[in-house]
C-alpha cells in the first residue's frame, strides 16, 4: 500500500515537472511572439508617425496657398471673405422640369360626341 503511494507520488512529481517544463517553454514562446508583435507595432507606429508628419508637411498652409495660386486657373480658389457668406433664403429653389405631355386626351373628340348626342 505504502509503496503504491510512493509510486503514485513519484509519478505525480514527474507529471507536474513535465507540465511545468512545458508551460515554461510555452510561456517563453508566447512572450517571444509578443515581443515580436510589439516590435512590429513599434515599427508600424514609427511608420505611421512618419506618414502623419508627411501629411502635416504636405498640408502646411504655405504649400496649400502656393498650390491654390498655381492652380488658380482651374480651381479659382480665393481666401474666404465675409461677402462670400450667404443666407439660405438667397438660394433659389431648383427649377421644376417642364411638363411634357405624353398621353394626350382628345378633348375635341369628346366635344364632337356630346354635340352628336345633343343633336339626337
Amino acid at each position: 500500500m505504502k509503496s503504491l503511494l510512493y509510486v503514485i507520488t513519484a509519478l505525480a512529481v514527474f507529471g507536474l515537472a513535465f507540465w511545468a517544463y512545458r508551460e515554461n517553454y510555452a510561456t517563453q514562446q508566447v512572450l517571444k511572439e509578443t515581443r515580436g508583435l510589439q516590435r512590429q507595432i513599434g515599427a508600424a507606429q514609427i511608420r505611421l508617425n512618419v506618414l502623419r508628419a508627411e501629411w502635416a508637411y504636405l498640408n502646411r498652409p504655405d504649400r496649400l496657398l502656393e498650390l491654390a495660386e498655381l492652380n488658380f486657373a482651374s480651381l479659382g480658389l480665393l481666401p474666404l471673405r465675409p461677402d462670400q457668406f450667404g443666407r439660405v433664403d438667397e438660394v433659389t429653389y431648383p427649377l421644376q422640369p417642364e411638363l411634357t405631355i405624353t398621353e394626350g386626351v382628345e378633348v375635341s373628340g369628346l366635344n364632337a360626341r356630346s354635340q352628336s348626342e345633343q343633336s339626337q
Partner: protein
Amino acid sequence: MTRRPLRPLARILDARAKGENPDAIEKENIRQRHDEMQVKSRQRAEGRLLVLGVFFLCAYAAVAGRMGVMATSEPREPVASTAGSAIAMQRADIVDRQGRILATNFETHSLYAQPPQLIDPEATAARLVEIFPDLDPERLLADFTGARKFLWIKKKISPEQKQAVHDIGDPGLMFGPREMRLYPNGSVAAHVLGGAGFGKEGVSAAEVIGVAGVEKQFDSYLRDPGNGSKPLTLSLDLTVQAAAERVLDGGMKLMNAKGATSILMDVHSGEVISVVSLPDFDPNERPQPPTSGFDPSVSPLFNRAVQGVYELGSTFKIFAVAQAMDLGLATPETVIDTRGPLRWGKFAIRDFRNYGNALSVTKIIVKSSNIGTARLAQQIGAERQRDFLDDLGMLEATPFEIVEAQGGKPLLPKNWSELSAMTISYGHGISTTPMHLAAGYAAIANGGRYVSPTILKQDGPQMGRRIMTEESAKAARLMLRKVVTEGTASFARVPGYQVGGKTGTADKPRPRGGYYEDKVIATFASMFPAHDPKYVLVVTLDEPSVFAYGEERRTAGWTAVPVAAEMIGRLAPLLGLRPQVEPAEVTGITLTSN
C-alpha cells in the same frame, strides 16, 4: 548485518567455568555496542551537516551569482503580462485646437566617426565634404588624423545623406539612431512652439529637450511617458494663425514697420487663437540667441507679444473711463473740463490737438483726449487706479504658458503718485506687453470678468473674478464702438463685423532716456462683434510710417488700424463668424406728448 549476542553462550560457559561473573561480559558487550552506535550516529550527523553545508553553500552561491548577474547586466523590465505596454515616442506631439500637428518626432540618424578605425582618412574626409559642403575640410582631416578617438560629424542627417555616407564604405564612420523634433508648418507659430534641441547625447540615443516656448514650458509633460501618446493640445488654430501671419506680414511691410505683433483671443475662455510676432524664424532651425550688447528686439527670437514691454499709449484710456463709470464718478454723458494744457507741477499734459473747453466722457474716448482722462484719473486717485490695474493683471507678468512670458514684467512707476495716475490713465508711465492689453480688453468685452490668457485649449468660459459691473463694461464697449464709427479708428469699419476698439500711439523711449521724435509704437486694441464681443484683437506695429495724403503719418489710426481691419476681414470668416447687420440704435422716433 549480523547482530552479535550480548551473552554469547561460549563465553558465558567459559566464564562460569572459570568462576567469573558472566554479567560482566554482557556489560562489556553493551558498552561495545553503544560505542559502535555512537560512532555510527556521529558519522551520520556529520554527513548530514556536510549535506546541509553544501546545500547552504549552493544556496548562497546561487543568491550571490544572481546578484552579480543583476548588478552587471542591462536592466530589463520583467515581462509578466503582455497587455498595456504601449510603445510611446520619446516626446509627445503638439497639436492645434483641431488636432492638426504642430510638432512631432521624426526618426533620423546622427553621424559620428572613430578615427582609429578609419582606413583612408584623407579620401573619407574629402568625400564627406562633398556630401556636407558646410564641413571644414582641413579641420575634418586634422580631427581624423589626430589623436581623437571619437567625434560627432553631424547631429541629424537625411536618409539620402545617410545612403551617400554609407556608400563611402569606411568602417570608421558610424550612424546612431536619433529622434528629432519636426515642425511641419515651418515658421507658423514659431514663437509659441519655440524649438527643441538635444540634451544628453549618446551613441545609441539622445535626449530631446525643449529650449523655448511651449516646448520648454511643458517639457516635463511632453517627456512624461505616463501620458502615453496623448498630444498637447494648444488653443491655436493653424488656419487662423497662418492667415494672421500672412496678413500681418503684408501690413508690416506696407507700413514700413520693423516689427509687428498681433494677438487674437477668445474673450470668454481666454484661449489665444492666434499670436503672431514678426519677424519670425523657422523652429526647425532655430537661430542662435543674440549675443549681449544690443537691443534684444532686433533678434527674430524676440517675442513681441509677450516680451515686448512698451508704453501702449491711448489704448489704456478706456480702463480709466471704465473705472470712473464703475465707481459712479462719471456716466458716458458727464462733461469734463478739457482746457489745456493741464499743469501738474512742472509737468504739462497736452492733447494731440485742441478739442475745445469741455467734452463728454464718450467724446473723450472718441477724440482720445489726454487731458480728459487725466482729470478722470485725478478723481479716481492713484490707490484705486493701482488696485484696478492689478485686478486686470497689469502689474505682473502674464500667466500665458510659454517661458518667455515670465520675462514680460510690466514696468511700473516706483512711486505711484497722482501725476503717475494721470499719465497712466492715457498709457504713459506704465509699460506692458500687448498680451496684458489683450487680457484687459477681454475683461471689458466679456462683461467685466478677468480672463487669463492661455495657450491651452479650454472646455468653457473661465468665469474669473469680477472687475467691473456688466453695465460699465457695456458702456465702455459702446464708447469703443463709437471710436470706430466716428473717431480715430474709422479705418476699422469692416462690413459685416462691428468692430469696437481704441487706437494708441506712443513715442518709443530712447535707451538712454527721453523719447524719439519719429519712432512710435502704434497699437490698435479691438473687439468684434462690438454688440456681443467674441474675440479681442490687438495689433501693434513697431516704428510704422506711411506716406498718405501729402504727409508722413505714424499714428495708429493710419497704420495699425487698417492692418487690424484687414485681419478682421480675413480672420472672422475663418473663425466661423457670419457677417451681420448691426442692430440699429433706437433713435429717430421720440415721444413728444401723450
